[in-house]
């Protein structure tokens, strides 16, 4: 098994990540709010990794069924989140280039 993260270091990770999340978004211009919300929606698609592990460890039928749905939903979150964010940001790129060119 992968080394376990002890309770207190998990708490440190939690705290530091929370500050990072706060700081990263603190200076966002309003025009990027929607793409950023979409982007952060994509980032929590990392739940896919957890869903794969949960399904991979499932031994009972109910565990496999629920695990299957976990992976299915998580894959939708990750892929859908990426596609939508990318499409939105693509427009920003094109409008900027038009302006420059």
């Amino acid at each position, binding site marked *: *098994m*992968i080394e376990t*993260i002890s309770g207190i270091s*998990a708490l440190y*990770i*939690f705290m530091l990540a929370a500050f*990072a*999340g706060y700081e*990263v*978004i603190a200076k966002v211009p*309003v*025009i*990027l709010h*929607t*793409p950023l*919300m*979409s*982007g*952060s929606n*994509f*980032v*929590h*698609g*990392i*739940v*896919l*990794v*957890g*869903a*794969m*592990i*949960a*399904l*991979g*460890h*499932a031994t*009972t039928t109910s565990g496999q069924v629920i695990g299957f*749905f*976990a*992976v*299915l*939903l998580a*894959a*939708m*979150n*990750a*892929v*859908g*989140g990426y*596609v*939508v964010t990318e*499409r*939105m*940001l*693509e*427009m*920003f*790129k094109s*409008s900027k280039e038009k*302006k420059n060119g």
Partner: protein
Amino acid sequence: MDNVTEAIYFVAAALFILGLKRMSSPRSARDGIVWAGIGMLAATIVTFFVPHLANFGLMVAAILIGSGIAFVTGKRVAMTDMPQMIALYNGMGGGAAAAIAAVELLKMSAQPNMPHGQVTMNLAVLGAVIGTVSFSGSLIAFAKLQGWLRKALRFPMQQAVNLAFFAATVGAGVYIAFVTPDVVVITLFFILALTFGVLMTIPIGGADMPVVISLYNALTGLAVAFEGFVLNNAAMIIAGTVVGAAGSLLTQLMAKAMNRPISNVLFGSFGSAGGGEEESVTGSLKPIEGSDAAVMMAFAEKVIIVPGYGMAVAQAQHKIWEMSKLLIENGVDVKFAIHPVAGRMPGHMNVLLAEAGVPYDRIFDLDEINEEFNTTDVALIIGANDVVNPVARSNPDSPIYGMPILNADHAKNVIVIKRGQGAGFSGIENILFYADNTRMLYGDGQEMANALIQGIKEL
């Protein structure tokens, strides 16, 4: 292999944070999502090599089906429908976190003698509640924005019923965590949490949906982080927490822009028959023809366009920009004024205008442009209502009192493109529409924009 897996998770977590950082500036935003995408891809691939995993057939099938559905829907959806797609995909993530919790809880239930830490148990249950509420709540938000659920559903004793469901959910959770993870109680617990998510979201009006979606986005992040603790996966903890924190801040910013505390959005009843007396509206609605409106704008020195959700519905952004270009050729100074909560998400209008090709330097925030309405000849309001309603300044009884608004009423002339008579999303009468210098251009946003283009060309 363990070390490689851990190393890749570490890099992925870093790429997520850097990606979000890059997404917060227009210049580098495009790279940002690609960076985060690379991190996600690497983390997913390396997970196949985590030792002692089984069920690879199911895993690959689920990934292929889920990705396929999401890819096609994500590519096909119109730009104007983006907000509900975000809500939908966010709900999927919350559902996934809840399902992970279900698998883990059922495992603990089947093996009562296997030691599992109390902290792990608590976090699994907490993540389960949050993920499940985010799942069913996001689906309701999706249905509302998609137009499947038109009305905000309210019934007597609603707050009490919601509170009862919340208490029952918490009670079941506490029982699972501290007494015994019984299968029946676990099932009941998830049903209660699902119902609570639905009940909590159903009374919230469509105008508040942006705040709600953002909130559920943050909640899904937290649920993912908690399940990350349970599965002992640092990448999930970091990514989930970052999203939880960033999403909370974004939710706050949005609620602040509406001048309404989040508690008010969730538990208040915006748009339900307000307690205060309606300010009696004086004056009348004065219609105008498209050709006359075109003349007004073509001979103006400065025109400010205020878009709202109506523009998105009518898909009028391209026509509006075409019209603006004609005006600019005629020497008119054209600017776009974006209210922070115009549309269904903050920045919704910016995205649509960017799609149509409107350059950044013509788009202004409320703070930047509000003074300029005083020197503006024509304010063209297309599909916006509450964000230009002066009662927000004048009538303390109004539900939107105190919300900062665009001072379109300070312009010399106001032209309002509107589909028909009737109040805005909040159900509040807009006194601006009755003002002496306001003219109403009734019709679909796109058709009216066409009429204006025709009118300007014919001059």
